[in-house]
Structures are given as structure tokens and as C-alpha cells.
């Protein structure tokens, strides 16, 4: 029975999607559902996948993230920890397919707006530059977030300060880059990164004396979604 629990939970999590699709297809659009068989197979895969993923979180990603955080705290070498934080942020972002897609699209927008030449080489260079900018900014974001946990700075000052910078930068940045900048904050945090980074933050906050895992442990993802917005707008200003 215990092994079936994740399956039940996955089924519960997916039911709303099925209901929404059925409702709109049958009652609003009044159209038959195409390829019923393929959809059933697909739903079964989604169900199985979600249940497996959750099990993997419980026995793999969470324990590893935490045990590494404890080991770093015990070792007490801040430089290694910060380097680890940077590489984790940079490494997980630079290969992210969503980011590669967004960067490609952004290059097209920039070429149409006449910011860069419409040649393939110029567009590739622009897309690569943007990708590196975002990856670098996520690395820096995780470093800043880990520093915050170590120093115990209150999160809301950092984030509200960051938002303020975003708002000011929005005023100065070229209009074509703004939508992309806002979106790049969202695409950086992939499904494997989030549990690892969360476990790292919570693990660090629980192993350092005077830190509260609830108050100090969360917040790394907030940094990882905020800093790229600022960096991408800087990138937009520099390239025009």
C-alpha cells in the first residue's frame, strides 16, 4: 500500500488538468477529443512519471542536497562553498533547454528591431551572449543567496532592493529586451535544480548556529529568479 501512495497523490494532482480540458472541449468549444487513445497513454505516463519523480526526491535529491550542505558547514571553508554555489547555479542554467529556446527567440526579436544585423552569425553571437549572461547571473544569484544565509541578512531587504533595481532598469532598458528579461527570471529554475537548491539552503540554515531553516533556508530560488532580470536588462543596454 505504501508504494502506491505516490501514485494516488499523482492521480489527485493531475485530475484538475483532465477536468479543465474535458470541460472546455465538451461544453465550451463543443468539439470531440481527438486521438483519445494517445491522450490516455500520455496521461498514464505523466502519472507514472510524477510518482517516480516524487519518490526520487525523497530518497535521492533531498538527502544528497542536505548531506552536502552539512558537510560544507562542518568543513567550514567558505570559499569552497561559494565556488560550489556558483558552479551549481551556472552549470544547471547554461544547458537548460528552455533558456536556449528563449535566447534564440530573443535574437530574432533583436534582429527585427534592428539592434543587431540579421545575419545568422550575429544572431548566434547575440543568443550565446544572452545565454552566458543568464547562466552567469544565476551563478552569482546562488552565491549571493548562500552569503545571505551565512550572514543572516533579512531576505526581504535583498529582494525588495532587487525589485527596485528592476523597476529602475526597466525605465532605461530598450523595450525589446524587457519582456525577455522578465521571462528569463522564470526559465532559470528547472525541475531538478529547485529541489537540490532548496535542500542546500535548508541544510545550511539548519547546520549553522543562530539560523532558522524557515526564515533563512528558503530564498535561494527567489534570488535565482531576480538577478537574471537585472543582468539581462544590463545586457540589453550594453548591446544597443
Amino acid at each position, binding site marked *: 500500500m505504501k508504494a502506491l501512495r505516490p501514485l494516488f497523490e499523482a492521480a489527485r*494532482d493531475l485530475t*484538475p*488538468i483532465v*477536468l*479543465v*480540458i474535458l470541460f*472546455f*472541449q465538451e461544453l*465550451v*468549444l463543443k468539439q470531440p*477529443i*481527438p486521438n483519445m487513445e494517445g491522450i490516455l497513454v*500520455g*496521461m*498514464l*505516463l*505523466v*502519472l507514472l*512519471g510524477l*510518482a517516480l*519523480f*516524487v*519518490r*526520487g*526526491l*525523497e530518497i*535521492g*535529491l*533531498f538527502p544528497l542536497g542536505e548531506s552536502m550542505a552539512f*558537510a*560544507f558547514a562542518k568543513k567550514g571553508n567558505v570559499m*569552497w562553498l561559494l565556488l560550489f554555489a556558483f558552479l*551549481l547555479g551556472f*552549470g544547471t542554467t547554461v*544547458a537548460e533547454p528552455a533558456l536556449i529556446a528563449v535566447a534564440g527567440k530573443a535574437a530574432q526579436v533583436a534582429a527585427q528591431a534592428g539592434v543587431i544585423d540579421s545575419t545568422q552569425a550575429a544572431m548566434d553571437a547575440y543568443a550565446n551572449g544572452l545565454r552566458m549572461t543568464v547562466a552567469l547571473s544565476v551563478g552569482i544569484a546562488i552565491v549571493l543567496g548562500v552569503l545571505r544565509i551565512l550572514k543572516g541578512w533579512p531576505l*526581504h531587504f535583498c529582494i*525588495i532592493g532587487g525589485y527596485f533595481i528592476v*523597476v529602475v532598469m526597466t525605465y532605461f532598458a530598450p523595450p*525589446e529586451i*524587457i*519582456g525577455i528579461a*522578465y*521571462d528569463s527570471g*522564470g*526559465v532559470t*529554475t528547472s*525541475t*531538478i*535544480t*529547485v529541489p*537540490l537548491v*532548496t*535542500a542546500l539552503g*535548508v541544510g545550511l540554515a539548519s547546520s549553522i548556529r543562530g539560523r532558522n531553516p*524557515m*526564515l533563512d533556508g*528558503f530564498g*535561494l*530560488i*527567489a534570488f535565482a529568479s531576480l538577478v537574471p532580470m537585472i543582468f539581462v536588462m544590463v545586457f540589453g543596454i550594453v548591446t544597443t
Partner: protein
Amino acid sequence: MSHLTLFLDTMLSTLRDVIPIAVVLLGFQLLVLRQKIAHPWRVFRGFVYALLGLALFLMGLQKAIFPLGEVMATQLTNPAFLYGELYQEGVTVITSIHWQDYAWVYVFAFSIGLATTLAEPSLIAVGMKAQQVSGGAISAWGLRLAVSLGVAVGVSLGCFRIVTGTDLWLYIVVAYVVVIFQTMWAPKMIIPLAYDSGGVTTSTVTVPLLAALGLGLAATIPGRSPLIDGFGLIAFASVFPIMSVMAYAQISRWQEQRRVSKVEEGG
């Protein structure tokens, strides 16, 4: 056969996504920390489960939900659906649009935002962790529901913005101001979690469907550019959960206080 190649393709791209992380983790574990991990095989098995699970999940989405969701998004924004028999392709010219005409689009945006966020794997992860760390004071399900409601409201407002053509930054600035005020009043414990929820909502499930909806809207409404207006729905989906999670904490604190004061009156 095509199932197998699709599966291998998804598996490979998931693997490529994970290799840099694995290199960093292993490198530090072996070269810097040099500490034995407890139950290494169990952890390894966990990684394989997570990878396999994610690949199956994505493959299933691509087979079942994305194609249908995208078709539905384009159909709902199609003038032929919106204006019924009054509209004839190539004959009718839409001169003015009323935001009320798009009622079904907002309802769809709301419900699909709610439903997909509930199934978002990274949000499930953060919810599990929050419940564990808070000792059950924050329930994983309550948090996920709060985030999903935030996404739902944000996305429908985002569609309204595309239809009316008002400036994106106006909404975002107002939203930030609301977030700042809420931060001053919300229970301290929830703030980091609320800020994190903004980042986790926009990954595997929600983004492709939202992008289809945004692009469909921007492409069919005269005077909107898919490039400028199509983007930006995701920004809405990241800010509104911050508000809804803080609101959830505020409401549960009020309920708690009311319960406490009632008990005191009774005793």
C-alpha cells in the same frame, strides 16, 4: 517504435540537463568534501527515479496535454469562436474589441493556470520541504493551492492586459508595491517561502501552455505584436503567487487568532 524514439529523445535531453549538475555534485563530493554519503546506492537510485520520472512526465505531457492545450488556446482566441456566426473569415473586419468578448479566455486562463500549477513538480518539491521544515505548520497542499490560485489570478489578469493593450510595466510595478506592503504585515516565517514560490511556478507544465495562450491572443487581436505582448504572461505568473502565499499566511494567522480569542472568552 515512435514511442521508443520519443522516450529515448526525452530521456537524452533530460540527461543532458542533469549532467552538469551531476559533475558539480560528484566533483565536490569526491575532491573537496571527501565524505562518505549515507546510503550511496539509495541516493543513486533516487536520482535515477527522479530522472526517469521527469522523462516520462515530459513525454506524457508532450503526447497528451500540450497538443490539446495549444489547440484549445488557439481555438478560444479565434474570432470565429468569439463572434460566432457574425464573423466571416476574410469578410468581417474587426474594428474595435471589447474586453468582455474574451470572457472564456479569462476563464480558461484561470482554470488552466490553477490546474497546471497544482501538478508542477518543482512546486511539489518545495511544498514537501516547507511542510517538513515548518513541522507541519504549513501544509504542502495548502501552500500549493495558494500558489496555484496566485498563478490563476495572475494569468487571467495577464490575458486581460493583452486584450486591453495596457502597459506591462504598469501592472508589474503596482504588483511589486502590493508585495512590499504585504511583506510589512505578513507573518515573518512565510516571507522567504512566498518569494521562492514566484520562481517555482514557471517551469515544465505551465510555461508551454501559457506561451501558446499569450501568442494566440496577441496574434488574433489587431494592433498587438506577438513578440512584445506574447511575452509577459510569465511575469504575471511569477509575481501573483508571492501575494497569494502571503495572503494565505495572513488569513491562517487571523483564523488562529480568532480561535485563540474565542477559547479565551469561553474559558
